[in-house]
């Protein structure tokens, strides 16, 4: 495998890891605040459809993005209502939201566009175009670093850079601000936060809403940047891979980056199974690569290699003592 092929593989990895990273960080905020969210998939899917639909009809990808984030926020609101206000089962709520998105997107797509549950192809300003970073063209001749900069670092849509920037931002928010400390506390021991006079309900809603915004970005990226338009079930389990990555990362932002890049690499290799064969000389079944993120997550969850311990109050509705 030559250098250029490697760069292309890594480039694909970055493009495929971006939606995983955004969804994983979304789940991170929510679960750190004690709200399990297995509805990441549904929120991404709904956002993917609405961003594509609005980008197509308005011709502006930014309005599309706004619509995607908006619908994701609505679903987050439902999840918050069910799991915070009405103290229902968070897992069932997440599942219902994923199903709701799966059905509604096709239903509305069929009603609006009549193309069998997809949106028309997005062109021009209705898509996020790749950005060529400064000097990428002119430095291309520099050995090693030139192609690295040109092929791998430059030439991605804006959402990719936003996703990667969100990693240090999330770390800073969670571990260096008062809001972050309270957010983490509310996921570990909500009673103590309540005793300190801070609203548990408010904090949890804030976390769920941040989760909604990030899922919206992830969905919009899928439909308007990675691909040009919405197709039925286009998230294809990415929400669950993000959930797996979140566990793999043990609910930490930097680890989330590495976990999603690793899972993105698996997805990239799934598209180029010939590459593995040339490098290690063994033919690896594509199904093995597809299942690997899940298998790794189960191994990590089982605690055989570095135990993953979730936030202690995760999944528990908070009831104030009377």
């Amino acid at each position, binding site marked *: 495998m030559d250098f250029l092929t490697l760069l292309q593989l890594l480039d694909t990895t970055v493009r495929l890891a971006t939606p995983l990273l955004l969804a994983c960080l979304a789940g991170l905020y929510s679960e750190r605040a004690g709200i399990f969210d297995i509805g990441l998939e549904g929120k991404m899917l709904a956002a993917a459809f609405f961003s594509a639909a609005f980008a197509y009809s308005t011709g502006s990808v930014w309005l599309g993005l706004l619509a995607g984030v908006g619908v994701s926020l609505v679903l987050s609101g439902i999840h918050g*209502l*069910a799991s915070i206000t009405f103290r*229902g089962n968070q897992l069932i709520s997440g*599942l*219902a939201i994923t199903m709701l998105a799966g*059905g509604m997107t096709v239903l509305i797509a069929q009603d609006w566009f009549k193309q069998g549950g997809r949106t028309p192809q997005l062109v021009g300003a209705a898509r996020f175009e790749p950005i060529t970073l400064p000097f990428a063209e002119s430095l291309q001749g520099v050995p090693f670093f030139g192609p690295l900069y040109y092929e791998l670092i430059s030439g991605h849509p804006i959402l990719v850079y936003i996703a990667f920037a969100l990693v240090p931002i999330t770390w800073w928010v969670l571990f260096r601000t008062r809001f972050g400390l309270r957010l983490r506390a509310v996921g570990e021991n909500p009673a103590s936060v309540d005793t300190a006079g801070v609203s548990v309900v408010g904090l949890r809603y804030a976390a769920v809403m941040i989760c909604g915004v990030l899922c919206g970005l992830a969905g919009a990226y899928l439909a308007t940047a990675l691909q040009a338009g919405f197709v039925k079930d286009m998230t294809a389990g990415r929400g669950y891979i993000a959930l797996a990555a979140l566990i793999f990362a043990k609910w930490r932002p930097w680890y989330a980056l590495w976990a999603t890049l690793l899972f993105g690499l698996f997805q990239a290799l799934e598209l180029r199974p010939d590459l593995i064969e040339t490098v290690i000389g063994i033919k690896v079944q594509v199904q093995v690569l597809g299942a690997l993120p899940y298998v790794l997550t189960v191994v990590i*969850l089982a*605690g055989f290699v570095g135990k993953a311990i979730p936030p202690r109050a995760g999944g528990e509705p908070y009831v104030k003592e009377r």
Partner: protein
Amino acid sequence: MEKMPHWADIVLIPLISLFLAAILSALVILAIGENPWAAFKLMVDGALMRSSGWGYTLYYATNFMFTGLAVAVAFHARMFNIGGEGQAMLGGLGVAYVCLFIPWPHWSLALIGASLGAAMFGALWALIPAYLQAKRGSHIVITTIMFNFIAAAVLNYFLVNVLRPPRSMDPATKTFPDATHLPSFRDMFSTAETIMFRGAPANVTFFIALAACVLVWFLIWRTKLGYEIRAFGHSESGAKYAGISPVRITVISMLISGALAGLMSVNTTMGESERLVLNSTEGAGFIGIAVALMGRSHPFGVFLAAILFGFLYQGGAELALWTNIPRELIVVIQALVILFTGALDNMVRMPLEKLFLALRKKGDA
């Protein structure tokens, strides 16, 4: 003292939830520009007014009874088995192996063999998450989700690389031998003059599903093991104090749950397609969750809810055939039912409890 009568808890709350889901679905149909009442009539006509419609309704209901019971048994032990889908996929693999590689003399023996195969494969697929939950404390919801995806990969591997007949492009096994053909409702109920259930896939597996409902009821409410499962579900520490082993109950109830989910594939694989195809489960594992929630985890409730969802599935197919309403409407209805009966349960329950308390105070005064 209970806040409201028992009948309100098991009958009124599911009905109100269903009513809310129905209203929202009607609004969705209105928004698409169709008439909800006409759509409902079309669904009833297509699913319940002809014997072939019933043949489809009961075929779907058979699947949902199995997966609904699977979820219900796990619910009794306070576990959420979201992995019915994967367990059913593996169950299909069990059915395929039993039907393809054992020369059965008669369908009745083949049915027993295939049921055992399906139940065993499904139970084994639930064993690892159960063991990890019991021994290592890994959350069973997350592990069973992961196992759904791993099951899909395993099934894909077996169908593409192992069981696919040579020179076939289709990722499916070859057709099962004739001796394993299960009698369909048409074979069983048609007379010389009138043909009943024409073209419908409902088959003898329906009666196995009915038997499973009765057996699960007996297990949960009439046996020592069932008592232990319920005790464990009510209070883990209480059960421990009574000498009930949490590891044992967790593993056994998940094995039963997985076996029930696996049995579903006897209906789809052996009864309908007569070969194993890639997407034979078609999301029935998830519908089982809606069925169990709606049926309040009681086998009789599961039976009724499974018939209801069978009706919705067949009616939805009719809608897709005759109107502009896509089949996905059923997924929406299903999601709303899960949302209202599962997650937003308190939204329905709290006002109702207040109402009953107020009524009782009035009665006392």
